[in-house]
């Protein structure tokens, strides 16, 4: 039963990472673009999905709370500042989707959208970094203070995750758009991919020099190398797919890289929930809680949720940000835009 909820938690976190990863990534790329036409199209490629994507964060949070209450309580209270900043970022970027269509001063929401995406991504990376490096605990209680998470390593991980998400976002744009945006995104992929590689190398060196406990895990558990191997193969295929101007492969390959990175981390944490302080078994909720969730939410609703997500992506499959779409969109005030984009700004 505990194992089932570990898997649900891991799966939900991974889904969040991949799904909100690409739309946070698009959010950051949005900030790097100046043209209103491009921005509208970029938004359109993620508009139908972001809400569903963010739901996986809530799913991960409540599963953590219900199945591993101690871990939820400890983690969130220890990471108070990054969590609050991440939430603030998510709030600002979330409302921007609707607000920028209604606003007269669109730039306000453009800034909120880009900065919110950046802040949320950075803080998520920081939290992962802080966990990998290990938070300070005394007698099972967090004792690191309000800024105990803030180390150079954590900040490095924050930057790294921003690059990672931007890479995912660029691949998403290649997949979902055409024309100038696709071309720009395609050019951005090698840049971000290199940045991610450099980041991974620096993290690895940092972990070596600082003798992070997690390194021992990698030595003790050589099978973790399988993930690194998968990641490397994916990186090579990614490079090839860019050269061949493939639209679909890059997103899949970056996904694979993320999955292998996530797998490496998850398995090096095992059997700890919060590394080297709280184990999965000691954090697990009583059987009556886990069983109650298992027989309803777990085996029945969870697959349904995955199904809704698939349905959502099926309905909005294919390229979304096409120049040819404009006519159709302008004929349907509700499609693509809830408010009313002015056709002149669309560069039709």
């Amino acid at each position: 039963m505990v194992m089932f909820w570990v898997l649900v938690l891991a799966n939900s976190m991974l889904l969040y990472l991949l799904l909100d990863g690409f739309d946070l990534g698009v959010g950051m790329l949005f900030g790097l673009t100046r043209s209103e036409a491009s921005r509208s199209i970029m938004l359109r490629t993620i508009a139908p999905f972001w809400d569903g994507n963010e739901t996986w964060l809530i799913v991960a949070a409540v599963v953590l709370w219900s199945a591993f209450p101690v871990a939820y309580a400890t983690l969130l209270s220890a990471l108070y500042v990054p969590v609050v900043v991440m939430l603030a970022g998510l709030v600002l970027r979330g409302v921007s989707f609707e607000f920028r269509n209604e606003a007269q001063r669109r730039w306000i929401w453009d800034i909120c959208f880009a900065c919110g995406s950046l802040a949320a991504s950075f803080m998520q990376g920081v939290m992962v970094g802080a966990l990998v490096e290990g938070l300070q605990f005394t007698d099972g209680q967090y004792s690191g203070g309000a800024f105990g998470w803030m180390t150079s390593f954590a900040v490095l991980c924050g930057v790294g995750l921003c690059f990672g998400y931007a890479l995912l976002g660029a691949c998403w744009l290649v997949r979902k758009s055409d024309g100038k945006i696709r071309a720009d995104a395609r050019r951005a992929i090698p840049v971000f991919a290199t940045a991610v590689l450099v980041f991974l190398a620096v993290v690895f060196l940092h972990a070596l020099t600082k003798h992070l406990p997690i390194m021992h895990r990698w030595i003790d558990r050589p099978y973790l190398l399988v993930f690194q191997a998968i990641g490397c193969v994916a990186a090579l295929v990614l490079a090839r797919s860019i050269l061949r101007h493939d639209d679909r492969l890059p997103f899949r390959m970056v996904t694979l890289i993320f999955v292998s990175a996530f797998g490496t981390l998850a398995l090096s944490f095992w059997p700890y929930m919060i590394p080297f302080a709280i184990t999965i078994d000691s954090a697990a909720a009583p059987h009556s809680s886990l069983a109650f969730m298992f027989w309803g939410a777990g085996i029945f609703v969870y697959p349904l949720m995955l199904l809704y997500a698939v349905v959502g992506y099926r309905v909005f499959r294919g390229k979304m940000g096409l120049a040819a779409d404009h006519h159709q969109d302008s004929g349907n005030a509700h499609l693509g835009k809830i408010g009313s984009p002015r056709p002149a700004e669309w560069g039709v």
Partner: protein
Amino acid sequence: MDATALLLSRLQFAFTISFHIIFPAFSIGLAAWLAVLEAKHLRTGNAVYRTLFQFWLKIFGVAFGLGVVSGVVMAFQFGTNWSVLSNMSGPIQGPLLSYETFTAFALEAGFFGVLILGRNRVAPWFYFFSTAMVALGTTLSAFWIMVNNSWMQVPVGYVVQNGQFVPDDWTKIIFNSVVWSRFPHMLLASYLTGAFCVASSGAWYLLRDKSRVEALVMLRMGLLLAAVLMPLQLAFGHLVGDYVHDFQPAKFAAIEGRWHDEQPASEVVIALPDPAHETNTYEIKIPVLGSIIGSMSLTSKEVGLTDFPPQDRPPVLIPFATFRIMVGCGLIMLALAWLGSYLSVTHRLERSRLLLWSIFLSFPLPFIAIFTGWYTAEVGRQPWVIYGALRTDQAMTPFLTAGAALSSLILFGAIYLFIFSFGTLFIYRLLRAGPSRNAIELPYDATPNRPMSLAGGDVAAVPHLMTAGE
């Protein structure tokens, strides 16, 4: 434990949850209203329903977005500021909120995209299905939240093990009279909010001589629904009062402003409670009515606040005042709904400017009633966070500093005020612009595979359409 951090954390929770509740309350009602409109349009083919649907969908979109983002904050705040609570009650509150997320959020999120952007990508029946699923999602969300909060009000079906509340009877937790009086009470409150906002917009358009056809439909549907639901709401409100009377006597005494035991008890209509002297000033009360309301009896003894040691008493002034404001709002709404429905059915409403003005200005009432109702429930539960089982001042993250709590409070305060002012501005603009009849009757076969299929139609209408929502 830091007393300032405690106060700040309580303020932050109160502020963020108050902000949050506005939007779910509004969107639960609106989602149901949209589903009804879409169903009516599918059945009758009457274009007015489609116009209204497209119009309210825009407003729903903005409100729903604000509800989602402020809800994400709630899912984390238990852990950040109330780690002791979230650890102890995690085995019960966690699964309940998991069920909320699993059954409701996923449903809403999954179909919201279709609702907002997918009209032309799916068949009409599937679009209606998506609307209904979003409405169902919002309702389920309310249900699980009410189960969760009701457990905090009247904890049942648990044992304490290793410092945690361990559930031993889920049927008791979910199927008890507290949940099943409070959930309908909240659901009706949301429907009434939707109904009053719709009716009030209708009244506004009539007063401004705008969109007469749509305005009359809004007024009629909103008022009739409110006229039917309002008495039901008062009945469920009474049932909610019964649970408070039976399970939370100190809260009941605070609401009643009753300091000492009375037999038979009188009902304080209005007063200024004076906690220092344990008495009321400027008191107006009706004899025996207190016993009738509390126990349906002419002779029952009703307990007063002084029966409880001071450290177990809730603050008196807030529950006492908020409860009366809530009931007052409810009674005004009842009067407006009945009078308005009567005039609407007899086709005299359009000529009664005074009533139209009253209906138009009534839109804050359901929101005020929801706020004050929740304040009565939550402040009245103090000093407990889990009634009788865990005190609020012992539930906070032990190492939370006042500095951290203050920073987050200021950050959330600033951001929420910022997005709230713009959110209301945008909703106001959409409402002021009113429904646009041009947005209707798009051919169903305008599929994405034939993006030009509309361009051959009424191209001239397009620029007009674009400005309609501004």
